[in-house]
């Protein structure tokens, strides 16, 4: 008897000769393997030490994406990016350079990462690709160097968990509020080392940007990857439309085996904030209302899409960021930047006093905007607020709309107050 398969099992089975089932270790064929400006130079070093000048398994499936320190603002990153560029030229690999933005997003926009595919990169949020039904996985530089050479990786098939959302969040809530609430409810245990499939209207009604937000924080819930059912509004097909290609989407079989089914009530869910120093330490905005802030950040792989900045601009339109407060804005990609330009969103953000920077990761590492000094309190649309990560200050995580509202007031506040 063959049991039905979950989404991850179907994707992996289509890329492996080995029998797929929870706990099985299989060899997986990779459609795309990539490295960033962080991890990339280490991949090059491993590759050259291990394989010398021998060719990659497939240069057309191998990419560099620079997004952490873009353009390089330290000498070390400038060196490291050039190491990758030189390697790329020698091997004929395409580089999505410092002008392009966050690698995982660029791969979607380019039609390289799509439904049913397998993609790896030196980015722990590569599982964000679950948003488009793609099996994405972040890996270290040894794994990626091996993948560059062989086009394969070993993988232990995780158990799958069904997360059923009941009810609909408050109309004042954003996908980020839903996502932070998942971080609270699921913690780092419920879906740890497992694949999650989100069901229920609150999940399936999420648009492309909303799915990106939810799936980007599976890593903070210690999960392997998260998927949303393929049912949903037409905008879910946006990645296919972006690249001009249509994709087939996998659905779990009705008799697929799940390790657990978790029901979470999200009816009327109000805006949420993750307080220092954990993304899983989540309260309602109402509970932390009035907390003084020095700075705000809107961007990151979690909330760097056009839809995110539109929500922020709706709050900021005709208003000013409070004097003494810095609001830093980093579009995820150049395409997003262009959309913001064409739709007049950049004008609104600029007039509000926000600082708009070039596309990239921002905030998550030393090398881009969104760092904090000792004593500074930041509210950010990013995905991590671990102690010391973005600097010695404290970081609260919230939706773009909550960040925007808080920057107008100079303290944490819900957007519905404007």
């Amino acid at each position, binding site marked *: 008897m063959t049991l039905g398969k979950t989404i991850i099992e179907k994707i992996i089975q289509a890329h492996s000769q080995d029998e797929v089932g929870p706990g099985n270790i299989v060899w997986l064929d990779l459609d795309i393997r990539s490295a960033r400006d962080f991890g990339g130079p280490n991949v090059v070093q491993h590759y050259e030490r291990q394989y010398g000048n021998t060719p990659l398994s497939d240069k057309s499936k191998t990419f560099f994406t620079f997004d952490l320190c873009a353009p390089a603002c330290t000498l070390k990153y400038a060196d490291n990016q050039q190491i990758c560029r030189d390697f790329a030229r020698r091997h004929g690999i395409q580089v999505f350079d410092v002008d392009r933005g966050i690698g995982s997003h660029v791969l979607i926009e380019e039609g390289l990462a799509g439904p049913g595919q397998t993609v790896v990169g030196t980015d722990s949020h590569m599982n964000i690709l679950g948003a488009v039904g793609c099996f994405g996985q972040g*890996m270290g530089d040894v794994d990626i160097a091996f993948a560059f050479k062989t086009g394969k990786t070993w993988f232990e098939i995780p158990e799958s968990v069904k997360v059923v959302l009941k009810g609909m969040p408050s109309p004042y809530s954003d996908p980020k509020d839903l996502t932070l609430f998942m971080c609270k409810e699921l913690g780092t245990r419920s879906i740890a080392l497992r694949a999650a499939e989100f069901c229920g209207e609150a999940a399936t009604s999420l648009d492309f940007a909303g799915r990106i937000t939810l799936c980007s924080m599976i890593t903070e819930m210690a999960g392997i990857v998260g998927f949303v059912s393929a049912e949903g509004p037409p905008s879910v097909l946006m990645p296919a439309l972006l690249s001009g290609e249509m994709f087939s989407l996998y659905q779990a079989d009705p008799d697929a085996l799940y390790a657990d089914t978790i029901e979470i009530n999200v009816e009327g869910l109000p805006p949420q904030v993750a307080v220092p120093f954990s993304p899983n330490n989540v309260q309602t905005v109402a509970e932390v209302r009035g907390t003084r802030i020095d700075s705000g950040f809107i961007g990151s792989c979690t909330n760097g899409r056009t839809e995110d900045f539109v929500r922020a601009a709706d709050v900021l339109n005709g208003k000013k960021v409070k004097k003494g407060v810095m609001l830093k804005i980093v579009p995820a990609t150049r395409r997003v930047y262009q959309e913001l330009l064409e739709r007049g969103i950049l004008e609104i953000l600029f007039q509000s006093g926000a600082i708009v920077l070039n596309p990239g990761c921002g905030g998550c590492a030393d090398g881009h905007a969104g760092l904090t000094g000792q004593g500074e309190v930041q509210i950010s649309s990013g995905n991590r607020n671990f102690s010391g990560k973005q600097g010695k200050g404290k970081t609260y995580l919230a939706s773009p709309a909550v960040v925007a509202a808080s920057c107008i007031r100079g303290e944490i506040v819900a957007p519905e107050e404007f």
Partner: protein
Amino acid sequence: MRETSLKGRIWILADRAGRLIEDIDTDQIFHNAHLHITDMAQMGPFAFGNLEGWKDFPQKCKEGDMILAGRNFGAGSSRQQAVDCLIALKVGAVLAPSFSAIYFRNAVNSGFPVLRIPDLKSLLDGKSLSSGDIIEVDVTLGKARNLTRDIAFKVEPMSEVQTKIFRAGNLFEYGRILEK
């Protein structure tokens, strides 16, 4: 064939109140300010440089020492440096109830022993393990003994693929064996 029995002094990563620290993330193990470093030999001094109470670990650690940590060790980023910095310090192994998926893979691929020890908390509560004790662990059998206190305990043995990569040395060497 690589030795599968490890022996060394243990460090229990606890906070000031003596509680085992859970969810230690890669920015606490190897901070992003040092991500530009590609030479493993230079990574050791930055190990645990952002983990409160443990910033002096590189000075305290000696070859073969083993680290015992709370669940979900290595949460966060995909950086291999969070493994490499411990290899650079010649740390013998990390034992924890669970690891983040990426951290675990990175360690396995580098041939660095990471071992699951599901009942670590009860072992600590029962004073069966304390920092400074010398333990011996067979990574493939999962048998372990606290030599200081003469107490036997169990760890999860390495999986088949983990054992194969460990024995080969690292993923690259294992790949060469597969090609033969």
